[in-house]
C-alpha cells in the first residue's frame, strides 16, 4: 500500500468536509475551463455559427465531467482512482479542426468516438510497453506539458494580444492574480493553501471589474439563462479514412500526456514511489478512452487529462479522489447552467494567464523530479536532452518544420508531441544492446557469502542499478551462497551470472551437488535445530527476497534463478 506523503492536506483516500469539497471541486472546474475556447476557434475558423461552438462546449463538458468521475474510480477495470480531471485536450485541436472543416460536426463526432476506441485499445497494450516508458521519458512528457503552457500562459499574463499602449493595466492584473496565488501557496496554512488558486481568481475577477478589464461581450454572455438542456451541433456521425492518421497521432499524444499525468498522480500520492504502476495507467487510459467515445457519441470533441489540474492538486496539497467526483459532477452540471458556465468562459485573459503560469510551474518541477528519479547515464542524458532540444525547436523555430506534410503537422505543431515521439524513438533505439552480463566463480566455504556479496556490489556499481534492488539481490545471493556452502549442498564451485537490462536484474547460480529447495512457505522456528530446517529457512529467505525464484537439478548439476524487477 502506498505511503501517504506528509505534505498532503487531503490524500487520495481522504474525504474532505462537504463545503471544502465543493470549493476544491470548483477550483478544479476553474482550471478545466481553460481550453473551452478551443471549440470557439475551430468553429469560427470553419465559418460556422457560434451556436455550434456553444453546443460543442456543452457536450464536451458533460463527457469530460463523466470522464473525470470515471477516472476517480478506484475499483474495476476503468479508472485509475486518482484526481486527474479531464477537459478539451489541445492534443486534439489539429485533427479536430481538419475534420470539422471538411465534414462538419458529424465527422468530428464520429472520428472522436473512433479515437476513443483507439485509446481504449492502446490502454490494453500499455502494460506490455513498460520498457518504452521509463520514468525519465515520462518526466520529459510531463515537463513538456508544462513548457507547452508557456505560450498561452505568457501571452495572456503579459497581455500580448492587447494594443501596445494599453498593456499596463492587464499586465498588472495578471501579476496581481499570480502574486496572490503564489503568496497563499507559499505562506498560506491549511485552507488558505488549499484554495490559493480560487482566492487568486476571485481577487483577479474583482480587480478586473473595478479596472474595467472584463471583455465587452461578457455582460451579454452572463445574461444567458440559468438552465438549458445542452444541444448537439449536428445530428448523426460519420467517418472518413482520410482522417484516421491525424486522429491516431492525436490519440497517441493524448494518451502519452495521460500516462505522464497519471504517473505524476501516482508519484504525488506515494512517498515511496519508484516506478510507474502500468496496471493503474492502463485503467486510467481506459477511462480516458471511454470518455472520448462518450464525447463523440454525445456530440463533443476530443478530451485529455488536464496537466494543469494535476499541478493544482500538487500546489493545494489536496489529491483526494472524491474531489475528482465533485469536480466531474460540477463540470457536467455547468453544461446545464449557461449563466455559470459563462462566468468561467469570460475569465479575463490576464487572470487566465496567471492561472496557466501558476499550474505550469508545478508541472515543470514535477517533470524534472521524475527525470531526476533515475541515475542519468550517457544514454538517458541523450534521450532526455535531445527530446527537450527538438521539442523546444517546435516552439522556438516553427519555421524549421514548414515543409512537413500536413498529415504530420499535429506532431511538429506541438512541442509536447515532438519531444514525446523523439524520446520514445531514442529510448527504443538505445535499448538495443542494453543487456549487460557479469559473471564470477565462488568457491564454497567461509568466504563464499562475502564473495557473493562483493560480486553483486560490483555489478550494481557497474550497471548504475537502483541501490534498493541491488541490496535485495545481494541479500538473496549471500544467503544462497552461505546456505549451499555451510550445509554441504555445493560439491564444487558456484558459477554466478548477473544480467541487467534496466527493467530486470536476473541472477543465475549453477553448481554441482544437491539443490536448495525454494519455498514461500515460512518454516516453523522449532525446525531450525537441524540442517533440513536451516535449508528450509534459507530457501524461504532467498525466495521471499526475490521477485521470482526457481530451483532445478539435472544430472547432478543445480541451477537457481533469481529475478528482481528493477
Amino acid at each position, binding site marked *: 500500500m502506498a505511503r501517504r506523503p506528509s505534505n498532503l492536506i487531503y490524500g487520495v483516500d481522504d474525504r474532505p468536509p462537504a463545503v471544502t469539497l465543493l470549493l476544491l471541486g470548483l477550483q478544479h472546474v476553474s482550471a478545466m475551463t481553460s481550453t473551452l475556447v478551443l471549440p470557439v476557434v475551430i468553429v469560427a475558423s470553419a465559418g460556422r455559427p457560434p451556436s455550434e461552438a456553444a453546443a460543442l462546449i456543452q457536450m464536451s463538458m458533460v463527457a469530460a465531467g463523466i470522464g473525470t468521475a470515471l477516472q476517480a474510480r478506484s475499483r474495476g477495470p476503468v479508472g485509475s482512482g486518482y484526481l486527474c480531471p479531464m477537459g478539451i485536450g489541445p492534443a486534439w485541436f489539429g485533427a479536430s479542426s481538419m475534420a470539422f472543416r471538411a465534414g462538419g460536426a458529424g465527422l468530428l463526432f464520429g472520428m472522436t468516438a473512433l479515437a476513443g476506441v483507439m485509446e481504449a485499445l492502446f490502454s490494453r497494450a500499455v502494460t506490455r510497453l513498460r520498457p518504452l516508458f521509463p520514468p525519465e521519458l515520462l518526466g520529459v512528457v510531463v515537463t513538456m506539458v508544462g513548457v507547452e503552457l508557456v505560450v498561452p500562459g505568457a501571452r495572456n499574463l503579459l497581455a500580448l494580444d492587447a494594443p501596445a499602449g494599453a498593456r499596463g493595466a492587464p499586465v498588472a492584473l495578471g501579476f496581481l492574480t499570480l502574486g496572490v496565488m503564489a503568496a497563499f501557496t507559499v505562506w498560506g496554512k491549511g485552507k488558505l493553501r488549499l484554495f490559493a488558486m480560487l482566492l487568486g481568481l476571485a481577487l483577479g475577477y474583482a480587480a478586473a471589474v473595478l479596472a474595467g478589464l472584463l471583455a465587452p461581450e461578457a455582460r451579454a454572455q452572463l445574461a444567458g439563462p440559468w438552465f438549458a438542456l445542452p444541444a448537439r451541433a449536428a445530428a448523426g456521425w460519420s467517418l472518413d479514412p482520410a482522417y484516421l492518421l491525424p486522429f491516431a497521432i492525436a490519440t497517441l499524444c493524448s494518451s502519452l500526456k495521460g500516462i505522464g499525468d497519471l504517473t505524476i498522480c501516482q508519484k504525488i500520492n506515494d512517498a515511496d514511489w519508484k516506478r510507474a504502476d502500468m496496471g493503474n495507467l492502463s485503467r486510467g487510459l481506459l477511462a480516458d478512452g471511454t470518455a472520448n467515445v462518450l464525447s463523440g457519441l454525445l456530440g463533443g470533441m476530443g478530451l485529455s487529462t488536464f496537466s494543469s489540474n494535476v499541478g493544482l492538486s500538487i500546489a493545494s496539497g489536496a489529491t483526494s479522489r472524491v474531489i475528482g467526483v465533485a469536480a466531474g459532477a460540477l463540470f457536467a452540471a455547468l453544461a446545464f447552467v449557461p449563466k455559470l458556465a459563462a462566468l468561467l468562459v469570460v475569465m479575463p485573459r490576464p487572470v487566465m494567464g496567471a492561472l496557466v503560469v501558476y499550474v505550469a510551474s508545478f508541472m515543470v518541477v514535477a517533470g524534472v523530479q521524475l527525470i531526476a528519479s533515475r541515475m542519468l547515464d550517457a544514454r538517458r542524458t541523450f534521450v532526455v536532452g535531445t527530446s527537450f532540444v527538438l521539442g523546444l525547436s517546435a516552439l522556438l523555430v516553427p519555421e524549421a518544420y514548414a515543409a512537413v506534410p500536413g498529415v504530420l503537422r499535429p506532431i511538429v505543431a506541438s512541442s509536447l508531441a515532438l519531444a514525446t515521439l523523439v524520446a520514445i524513438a531514442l529510448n527504443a533505439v538505445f535499448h538495443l544492446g542494453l543487456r549487460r552480463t557479469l559473471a564470477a566463480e565462488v568457491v564454497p566455504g*567461509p568466504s563464499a*557469502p*562475502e564473495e557473493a*556479496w562483493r560480486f553483486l556490489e560490483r555489478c550494481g556499481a557497474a550497471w548504475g542499478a537502483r541501490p534498493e534492488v541491488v*541490496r535485495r539481490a*545481494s*541479500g538473496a545471493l*549471500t*544467503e544462497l551462497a*552461505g*546456505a549451499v*556452502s*555451510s550445509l554441504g549442498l555445493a560439491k564444487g564451485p558456484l558459477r554466478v551470472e548477473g544480467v541487467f537490462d534496466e527493467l530486470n536484474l536476473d541472477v543465475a547460480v549453477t553448481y554441482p551437488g544437491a539443490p536448495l529447495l525454494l519455498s514461500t512457505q*515460512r518454516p516453523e*522456528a522449532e525446525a*531450525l535445530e537441524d540442517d533440513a530446517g*536451516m535449508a528450509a*529457512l*534459507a530457501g*524461504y*529467505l532467498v525466495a*521471499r*527476497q526475490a521477485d521470482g525464484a526457481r530451483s532445478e537439478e539435472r544430472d547432478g548439476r543445480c541451477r537457481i534463478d533469481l529475478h528482481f524487477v528493477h
Partner: protein
Amino acid sequence: MQIARRESGGEYELWISGRVDAFAAAELDAALDELARLSPPRVALRMIEVDFFGSAGVRSLVRYRKKASAWGGTLRVADASEPVRTVLDLVGLGGLCSDR
C-alpha cells in the same frame, strides 16, 4: 562481522556490524552463549550497522531466546538496519524490535 559488548543499566548490549552470514553467525552464537551464563541474561542487540542478516543469524536469535526465556531473561533488538528488519519481519520475529 564485528561484535562489541557493553553493559547498561543491568542489560547487556551487543553492538554488531557487518554481515551476519552462515559462517559469521557462529561468533554471534558464542557471544550470546557467554551472556546466557550471566545473570540476569537480559540482552539488547544493536544492529543498525548490519548489512546482511541471514538464516544463521535468525537461528542464533531463536536459540538464545529459548534459553533466555527458560531462565527468566529477555532478548530485544534495540535498533536494526533495514536488511535486519526485513528478515525479522519475513520470519515472524519483527516483535523482537523494541521500537515497535
